[in-house]
C-alpha cells in the first residue's frame, strides 16, 4: 500500500516535472520574436519598446540579430573595398571568393555578363544579408531573423520591386505591361490571362518569402524537438541519441544556411532575367 502511494506520488511528481520541462524547451517560445534578449547565464536584457506614430517599432530579439548581421556586413565589406594591391590573405580571400561566386554563379550565370553587372550590388546584399542572418541563428544565444515571416516578407518585397523594376527598365513600361497579355491569345481570354499573370508575378516573391521562413524555422524546430525528447521522456538514455541527432541536424542547418541564401538570390536573379525577356 505504501509502495503504491509512493509510486503514485512519484508519478505525479514526474508529470509535474515533465510539464515544467516542456516549458523549458517551448519550441514556439524559442522561435517567436520577443522583447527580451536571453543571454543565460549572463542574464536577460529587456529591449526598449518604442512607438512611432502609433506603430509598434520596438527593438526585438530579431531586430538585434538583424542589426548584428548588417554590422558584420559593413565591417567586412567596407574595409574590403578600400583595400588596394598587396597580397590578399585569410578572411579577405574567403569573402572575395564568396563575392566572386555570387557575381559569377548567381548573377552572371543567370542574367549575363553585360546585363547582369547592375544587379550585382542588390543580389550580393541580398545573399550576404540572408547568409549572415541564417548563420547568426546557429551561434550560441543567436536568433535566426530569417525564421520570421516579417523579415523574409520584406526581403521578398525588395526582390519583387527589383524584379518588376528590371522588367520595366529593360522593356519600357508599355511593352512590359503588354507582357501581361501574351501575343497570339484571343482577346476573349484576357479576363483569365491577366489575373493569372498578375498572380504569377506575386507568387514568385511569395514563394521566396515562405521558402526561406519555412526552411530556417524547420531546422530549429527539429533540433528543439530532438532536445525536447530528453525532457519529455525523462531519461538520460535518450540524451546521447537526441544530442547526436541534433548535432547532425545542426550540421545540416549550416549547409541549409548557405543553400537558402543561394536559392533566394539565385531565384531572384532568374526572375529578373525572366521579366527582362517576357515570353
Amino acid at each position: 500500500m505504501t509502495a503504491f502511494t509512493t509510486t503514485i506520488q512519484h508519478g505525479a511528481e514526474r508529470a509535474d516535472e515533465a510539464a515544467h520541462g516542456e516549458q523549458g524547451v517551448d519550441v514556439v517560445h524559442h522561435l517567436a520574436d520577443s522583447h527580451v534578449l536571453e543571454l543565460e547565464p549572463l542574464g536577460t536584457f529587456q529591449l526598449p519598446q518604442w512607438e512611432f506614430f502609433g506603430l509598434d517599432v520596438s527593438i526585438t530579439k530579431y531586430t538585434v540579430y538583424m542589426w548584428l548581421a548588417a554590422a558584420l556586413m559593413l565591417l567586412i565589406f567596407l574595409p574590403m573595398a578600400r583595400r588596394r594591391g598587396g597580397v590578399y590573405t585569410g578572411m579577405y580571400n574567403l569573402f572575395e571568393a564568396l563575392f566572386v561566386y555570387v557575381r559569377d554563379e548567381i548573377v552572371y550565370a543567370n542574367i549575363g555578363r553585360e546585363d547582369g553587372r547592375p544587379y550585382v550590388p542588390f543580389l550580393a546584399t541580398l545573399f550576404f544579408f540572408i547568409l549572415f542572418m541564417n548563420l547568426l541563428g546557429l551561434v550560441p544565444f543567436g536568433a535566426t531573423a530569417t525564421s520570421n515571416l516579417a523579415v523574409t516578407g520584406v526581403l521578398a518585397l525588395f526582390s519583387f520591386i527589383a524584379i518588376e523594376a528590371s522588367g520595366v527598365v529593360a522593356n519600357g513600361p508599355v511593352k512590359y505591361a503588354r507582357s501581361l497579355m501574351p501575343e497570339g491569345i484571343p482577346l476573349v481570354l484576357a479576363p483569365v490571362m491577366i489575373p493569372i499573370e498578375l498572380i504569377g508575378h506575386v507568387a514568385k516573391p511569395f514563394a521566396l518569402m515562405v521558402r526561406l521562413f519555412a526552411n530556417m524555422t524547420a531546422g530549429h524546430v527539429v533540433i528543439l524537438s530532438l532536445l525536447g525528447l530528453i525532457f519529455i521522456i525523462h531519461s538520460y538514455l535518450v540524451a546521447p541519441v537526441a544530442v547526436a541527432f541534433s548535432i547532425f541536424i545542426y550540421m545540416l542547418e549550416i549547409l541549409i544556411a548557405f543553400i537558402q541564401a543561394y536559392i533566394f538570390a539565385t531565384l531572384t536573379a532568374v526572375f529578373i532575367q525572366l521579366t527582362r525577356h517576357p515570353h
Partner: protein
Amino acid sequence: MDLLQPEPGLIFWTTVTFALVLGILWKFAWNPILGALEAREEAIRKTIDDAERLQSEAKTLLEQHEAKLAEARTEGNRILDEARQAGDRLKGDVLDKARTDAEQVIARAHRQLELETDQALETIRNEAAGLAIKAAEKVIQRSLTEDDHRRLAEQAVDEIARASG
C-alpha cells in the same frame, strides 16, 4: 508573440536596415570591389597575354639564334677546311722548293769539288814537274853519266804518270 504573425515593428526595421545596408554597400563596397576585381582580372589577363607574347617572341629569337649558330658553325668548318687545304698546299710547295734548293746546293758543291780536284791535280802535277826538274838539276850538278840521266828521267816520268793516274 505568434510565429506566423508578422510584427509591424520588425517589418519596419527590416525595411530600414536592408535599405541602409543596400545603399551603403552599393556605393562604398560593391561597386568599388566589383571595379577592383575587374581591374585585377584585366591585369591578370593582360599579364598572361604579355607573357605568352614574350614567350613566343623569345622562341622565335631562339630559333633565329640557333639557325645563326648553325650557320656560323658550318662557316667556321668551311674556313678551317680551306685553311687546312691551303696549309697542305703551302707545305708541299715549301718542301718541293727546299728539295730543289738542296739538290742545287748539292750539285753546285759537286761541281766545285770537281773543279778544286782538277786544280789540285794541276798544282800537284806542276809541283811534281818542278820537283823533278829540281831533282834533275841536283843530279845533273853532281854530273852523272848519261845512263844515269836517262834512268832518272824515266823514273821521274813514271812517277808523274803514276801520280796523275
